[in-house]
């Protein structure tokens, strides 16, 4: 392949990001005020040395790692609850009628609206408190996992996953269930071997959306009292110090990791669920 062909192919992907960077560089040069808009180079510098300690909060990488662990723990909790509950509600009409009215009432509440209550309930209680760890490395790690943050992230991820699990199970064709019953499937077989695989594409899609929402709740969760680390906190702390370059670096980290996690799900969908696109 010649150089032009390669350029033409990759050009489609990088043209707009490139123009955006040019625009940003131009505006920064034009404004000459690094608090309002720092230069591209200034932000890039932060990514060149990701392990350098920033504004007395430790390096960027550590804060990203702390945030990632927080998001994943709230998210995994949401997955573990929403998937089985969604399958139950999708399959048993009674379970649906029992739970749906109640859950639908909480669905429209933005995760952020829970903050005052969550603070009143959990304060700065963390997993370190739960496990009774009071010092050492384990304390440092566990103390970063505040119940309040996990709860906010959990709420954000829970509903997209629940809804897609219910929808996935409800759209399983009856003939599949009937043919399994006729072949002697027990209720457990129906769950494990028919309902779960049949609704898995929908569930994974919900998990993908849920992870996006969880990640978006991160900044608000990390603004809660008791938080001393994480990208969300880094951003708000840098804001108070007028370090806009760090704010932007934090935003880019969140965006990049979110996009990467999304890509991971898209690859799974593409590789594992070929059958959904090809069946009528």
């Amino acid at each position, binding site marked *: 392949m010649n150089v032009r062909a390669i350029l033409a192919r990759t050009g489609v992907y990088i043209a707009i990001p490139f123009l955006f960077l040019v625009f940003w560089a131009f505006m920064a040069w034009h404004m000459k005020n690094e608090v309002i808009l720092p230069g591209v180079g200034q932000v890039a510098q932060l990514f060149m040395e990701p392990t350098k300690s920033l504004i007395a909060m430790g390096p960027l990488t550590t804060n990203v790692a702390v945030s990632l662990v927080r998001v994943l723990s709230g998210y995994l909790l949401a997955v573990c609850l929403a998937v089985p509950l969604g399958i139950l509600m999708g399959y048993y009409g009674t379970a649906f009628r029992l739970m749906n009215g109640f859950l639908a009432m909480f669905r429209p509440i933005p995760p952020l609206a829970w903050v005052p209550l969550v603070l009143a309930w959990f304060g700065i209680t963390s997993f370190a408190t739960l496990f009774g760890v009071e010092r050492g490395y384990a304390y440092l790690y566990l103390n970063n996992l505040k119940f309040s943050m996990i709860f906010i992230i959990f709420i954000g991820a829970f509903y997209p996953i629940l809804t897609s699990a219910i929808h996935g199970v409800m759209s399983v*064709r009856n*003939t*599949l269930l*009937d*043919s*399994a*019953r*006729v*072949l*002697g*499937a*027990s209720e457990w*077989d129906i769950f494990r*071997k*028919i309902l779960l*695989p*049949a609704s*898995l594409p929908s569930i994974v899609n919900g998990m993908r959306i849920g992870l996006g929402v969880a990640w978006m709740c991160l900044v608000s969760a990390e603004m809660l009292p008791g938080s001393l680390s994480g990208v969300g906190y880094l951003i708000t702390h840098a804001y108070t110090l007028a370090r806009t370059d760090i704010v932007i670096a934090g935003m880019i980290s969140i965006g990049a990791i979110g996009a990467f996690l999304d890509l991971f799900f898209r690859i799974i969908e593409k590789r594992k*669920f*070929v*059958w*959904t696109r*090809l*069946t*009528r």
Partner: protein
Amino acid sequence: MKEYPILHVQSLRKSFRTNDGGTLEAVAEVSFEIPENDFVCIVGPSGCGKSTLLRMVAGLESITAGEINYRGDTVSRPRKEIGMVFQEYSLLPWRNVIDNVALGPEFSGVPITVREEKAMEYLRLVGMEAFSQSFPHELSGGMRQRVAIVRALANDPDVLLMDEPFGALDAHTRILLQKELLRIWERHRKTILFVTHGVDEAIYLADRIMVMSARPGKILEIIDVDMARPRHRGDPAYGQLADRILAILEQEAAFSFGNGSAAQY
């Protein structure tokens, strides 16, 4: 000890509750008995409740009144001895062919090597062994139904219920599969209860034909098909029997029109 027929249906009724609070009678007073190894076809106008009848025999549908007995045992839920093949696409799309065929034995806890071997043997029966690793979406409609039939057979049922299994296929494939079904039946001698709206299909396949009325479905006539196999569609007796059945169905249609109930169809 009294010898029970393999399938005995007594005064079976089925009514559904409609959305406006009324009841809709789908099946009215159906009684019949099926001897072992018989190939019985049920023909009737569409919407006459023949599929509902079959689903009740399979244990998939609740019974409003009456009784269904398999070798003297009440049928109230699906059971291994009674298999079923559906008209619609019923293979699990995320499993390959062999794992689909092995599904019944898998549910009864047969070890994987044993059930795969058995599935393979049944795939050979319909010449599908080369497709064991294929996925349903890679197969044609006729191949999918072949797999659906052997999947039912691999569970070793005594009775095979078939709900218009060839209804969605093109004419040519349908005739091929009818032949193949007869070949399998002659070899494995299952008792088959086959629902169709095709009179031609019923005459080609059945030992006996039960003609059903328009809704609420009841059995108008039970006709023995005394023609040697393989049957030929050009045979005069074939045409005469078709005429006779069509006349019953036509009269039935006229009757429903007279009743004003034809508007439902």
